[in-house]
């Protein structure tokens, strides 16, 4: 009898949750999109009453692996083309569109304890934290260091790598280590640096060395809410959507 009560109770809890899930848009988004997407999600919910936008934020490659293994989602917004291409190759995503660009910058903790004023000073830092080469920010970091080696001398990348204390698995973990003052310097996206406010100082990377990260977004093939998903993608590319992204430090995509 008591068992039956428990089952009834459980079913009572479970049912409304399922009814709500019917109008839930699940967005898999790169960790660096956290703040901007939270706001875009709110305005999407306002313009679509009864719809709830759930964000699943992690490193792009982690999201890709989850999607490949059947994680249910409607939209995938990646911080690099590579992960999106992998899903395209497996026909797990529809044609992607670039909705934002992001620029890596150098960040140091407030007060700049190691006295770093430009990329060329980076080997002076005691402890540098970078992204693992498997994740987008880590791949960009390596490209930046290779380009810098052509400017500052062949050994530059090796001198920087000798100071690397950790290769973190997503850009927010890289940033967290600078915010805590554990790392003397790191390379993160400009948008992440903006999210950290006054806890970090931003040092732009020299022109010609820097790379620009492109963010593609696509509706997933197995989307449960394909229509809502397309509307969310449209919002990202609309003038108000681009304006919001710009406010969080993203470079917007001009009509080319």
């Amino acid at each position: 009898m008591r068992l039956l009560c428990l089952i009834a109770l459980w079913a009572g809890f479970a049912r409304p949750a399922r009814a709500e899930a019917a109008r839930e848009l699940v967005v898999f988004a790169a960790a660096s999109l956290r703040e901007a997407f939270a706001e875009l999600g709110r305005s999407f919910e306002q313009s679509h009453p009864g719809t709830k936008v759930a964000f699943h934020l992690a490193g792009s490659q982690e999201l890709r692996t989850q999607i490949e293994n059947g994680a249910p989602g409607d939209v995938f917004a990646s911080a690099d083309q590579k992960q999106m291409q992998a899903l395209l190759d497996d026909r797990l995503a529809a044609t992607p569109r670039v909705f934002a660009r992001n620029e890596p910058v150098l960040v140091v903790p407030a007060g700049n304890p190691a006295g770093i004023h430009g990329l060329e000073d980076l080997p002076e830092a005691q402890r540098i934290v970078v992204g693992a080469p498997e994740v987008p920010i880590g791949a960009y970091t390596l490209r930046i260091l290779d380009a810098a080696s052509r400017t500052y001398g062949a050994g530059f990348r090796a001198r920087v790598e000798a100071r690397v204390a950790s290769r973190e698995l997503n850009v927010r973990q890289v940033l967290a280590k600078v915010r805590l003052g554990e790392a003397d310097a790191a390379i993160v996206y400009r948008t992440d640096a903006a999210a950290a406010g006054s806890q970090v100082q931003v040092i732009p990377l020299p022109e010609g060395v820097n790379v620009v990260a492109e963010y593609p977004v696509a509706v997933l093939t197995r989307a449960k809410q394909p229509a809502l998903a397309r509307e969310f993608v449209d919002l990202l590319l609309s003038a108000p959507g681009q304006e919001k992204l710009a406010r969080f430090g993203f470079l917007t995509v001009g009509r080319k």
Partner: protein
Amino acid sequence: MKQGGPTAWGAAQALASVLLGAFLLLPVLALFSTLGWSDFLGGLRNPLLGPALRLSLLTTATSLALVVGLGSLFAWRVARNPGRLSRWLEAVAQIPAVIPPAVAGVGLLLAFGRRGLLGAFLERHGIALVFTTPAVVLAEAFVSAPFFIQAAIAAFRRVDENLLVVARTLGASPFRAFVRVGLPAAAPGLVAGAAMSWARAVGEFGATLLFAGNLTGRTQTMPLAVYTAMESDLRAAQSLSLVLVAIAFALLFVLRRVASGAALPGTEPRRA
């Protein structure tokens, strides 16, 4: 009392055992069954494996030595001196077991980080812990200590008080009574606790990632290597996992054999 039998109670037990047993076994079987031998051998050749395995063995051996060494004295104190302080100590030793490892990692950062409670002091004396191998050991010791301490307290509580009294009347010092009577009598429980504690340390992930970072050869233990491999290739992660599971099974098997062997001298304490 008859156990099992063709009753509803017996059927419930059988059903629960089969369901839970299958649930616990299935993920492990999945790791093995979806990979062939060639994948396993591929895992052995993965460049992440060697440094990560060496580091995992080194750090868990160190953390286990710390936990068993200090934990034995701690547990003896708590088990043999009942009182308010002992109850407090016992509760404190349980804290790491009930907080999530990621929270433990944040706590360790805020305690031992450059700007941390103790870390700021250490920093002034030129000791930096974060991103170092000792940080890995601290993270592992923190999360695994409760498993040994709890088992050791239980084992020491079961040691017959009369044996210790006899040892003392025969002229043994308290330390000698502990070493010659207490430890052998509690040995099976201690070994079982050490095995659980070690298994927890080997699997430590969240606290290590946050507190020690992720650098090959320095702080990238096996679980971190699995996670890093997964960023690029699920199969590589899976084959690394297999190597880890195989080693863990082998060591746990040996430890269980040792534990059942240790039970013999434990039941019959040697003369002091």
